[in-house]
């Protein structure tokens, strides 16, 4: 997995609430049994003028310069709610998004981000709106810096905002760890649990 430490990049504001994973990547855009080839379908329902088409809607933020090069996405609360499809994160990452900043997330989406090198930052709604305001009012100032080492976000105006993230997710992102490798080091503990549990709950073991 790609590591995430620090990123200073263009941030695109898409401040809608409850953006669901169906909107991030519609099911019709998932055409193969693969984690690749999904960026074309990213936000397809909003990015293109016709369902299934590829003619860009110039009104959509990611179709406008400089946001075509955005690596950070600002959004409203409950980003990534709905379907568990990890394709949402794969599509975002393949398109170029490395970090999202929102007041809250769909739980499954949040967990999926950390396992794909995408950093989900939680900042309160007023702060996210302030970041978006600075970007909208001064398009020259569209760079935001996200620092996972220090757990800070630096706004275009230089103001620093701290965020929290679970230590397991943080470590996985910082080190680019494979979660299965990490857990398999605890194989003895898993086996010991199974032996104890088999006596306690024998009906579980088919």
């Amino acid at each position: 997995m790609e590591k995430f430490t620090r990123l200073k990049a263009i941030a695109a504001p898409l401040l809608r609430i409850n953006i669901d994973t169906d909107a991030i990547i519609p099911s019709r855009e998932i055409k193969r049994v693969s984690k690749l080839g999904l960026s074309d379908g990213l936000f397809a329902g909003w990015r293109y003028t016709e369902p299934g088409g590829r003619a860009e809607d110039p009104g959509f933020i990611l179709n406008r310069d400089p946001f075509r090069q955005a690596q950070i996405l600002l959004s409203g609360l409950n980003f990534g709610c709905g379907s568990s499809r990890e394709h949402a994160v794969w599509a975002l990452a393949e398109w170029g998004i490395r970090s999202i900043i929102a007041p809250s997330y769909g739980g499954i989406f949040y967990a999926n981000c950390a396992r794909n090198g995408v950093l989900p930052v939680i900042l309160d709604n007023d702060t996210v709106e302030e970041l978006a305001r600075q970007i909208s009012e001064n398009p020259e100032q569209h760079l935001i810096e996200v620092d996972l080492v220090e757990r800070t976000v630096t706004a275009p105006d230089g103001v620093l905002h701290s965020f929290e993230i679970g230590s397991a997710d943080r470590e996985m992102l910082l080190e680019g760890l494979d979660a299965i490798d990490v857990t398999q080091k605890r194989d003895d503990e898993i086996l010991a649990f199974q032996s104890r549990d088999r006596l306690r709950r024998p009906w579980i073991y088919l």
Partner: protein
Amino acid sequence: MGRTIIDKLWSEHRIADLGDGTSLLYIDRIFLHERTGSIALKSLEDQGRHVRNPEQVFCTMDHIVDTTPGRGDATRVPSGTDFIKTTRTAAHAAGLNLFDLDDDRQGIVHVVSPEQGIAMPGVTLVCPDSHTCTVGGIGALAWGVGSTEAEHALATKTLVVKRPATMRVSFDGQLPYGVTAKDMILHLIGKYTASGGVGYAIEFAGTTITALPIEARLTLCNMAVEFGAWTGVVAPDDKTFEYVKGRPYAPKGEAWDRATEHWKSLVSDSDAEFDREIAIDVANIVPQMTWGTSPQHEAGIDQRVPDPRNEPDANRRLSMERALEYMNLEPGTPLEGIPIDAAFIGSCTNSRLSDLRNAAKVLKDRKVAPGVKAICVPGSSQVKLAAEAEGLDRIFTEAGFEWRESGCSMCFFAGGESFGVEERVVTSTNRNFENRQGPRTRSHLASPTTVAASAVLGKLADVRKLEPQE
């Protein structure tokens, strides 16, 4: 201090404390389906990893399978057959329990898992599907995961999980006529929003829950994820034990006695404290209907389409405006009476035998309104067989409904079959998102009985005004 059911289920499955509120949890059961299970199995295989306990992993075909009678591997979803075949090959190679298309145990994963006794009280169960929380209705700790997490569970039989906060939602009182578990959960989401449950594991409790049949509890927990919750659970009771007993994968004989004895302890202690409590008196709930593009965009069927100008929160106001434009609805329009083009009964939310029986009571000796496309898709092959054995299929077809093979069907549009552009559908499913059921399709979520009543009248209907036909 006493412990909540969530505390008990958590500690019973904790292998290691990883600090920071995170635990390595043991996962008892893993379920896969062809849409997201395929990529998890393929990815695992590509990395040369193995399924740790294949005998405790189950797999079904539901998401993109064709549901027209006489179906095979062919599907109207472009390249859909690849998902079916990849899953089949990988499931056989890994030695999983596969309920394939020709198996009468096939069906929607969350309908099949309690039906077969795979989901049981006290088990941890994960599936790469957000509606895995459904089986919380049977007292399981079950939640949806992504494909990578599914790979982790398959390879290690564990997951690393940050402990959620706890919430108890108490529903009390007797459900009024025409009001169902679907209306209860829509009401909760409407009142507390689609993000009201973010970060929480929820116990649904109270006298209404105790009185609910198991299938209704499954409906209720199904939409915990639409409330934003990590999962929902109902404490197992005698009704649960009666439901589970005798199911194919349920314990038998002495094991059954030991299991039920253990399951009786899986209730919140009387002095247990939750991080948040919500209490709802069900006497005030009426049949619910969504009007927008989020499950929180909902109201009683006797209400009008709300006016965004009355919404003080700017973000919610914007979301309402967008939704009304998409849905082509004017503020102030009475919900009851809005003309519809189609009606759909199915999905992991509302496709079980009791759902079909209740809808059939409304449809008996009645006809679907002219011009309304009406489809019923039983949740599993077992549900379909049981419904046919008692003649429900004839009630549906005589009313003018199509009667299908089981699967997720038109709960979502994957590029195959869909409702038409700008068609208005009343649906017993769980998501009314933009384009969810078809390009620009307008979805109204409701209970199966409300869907049936609306199909008959050709417009969004108040089921309480139609006499049930016994």
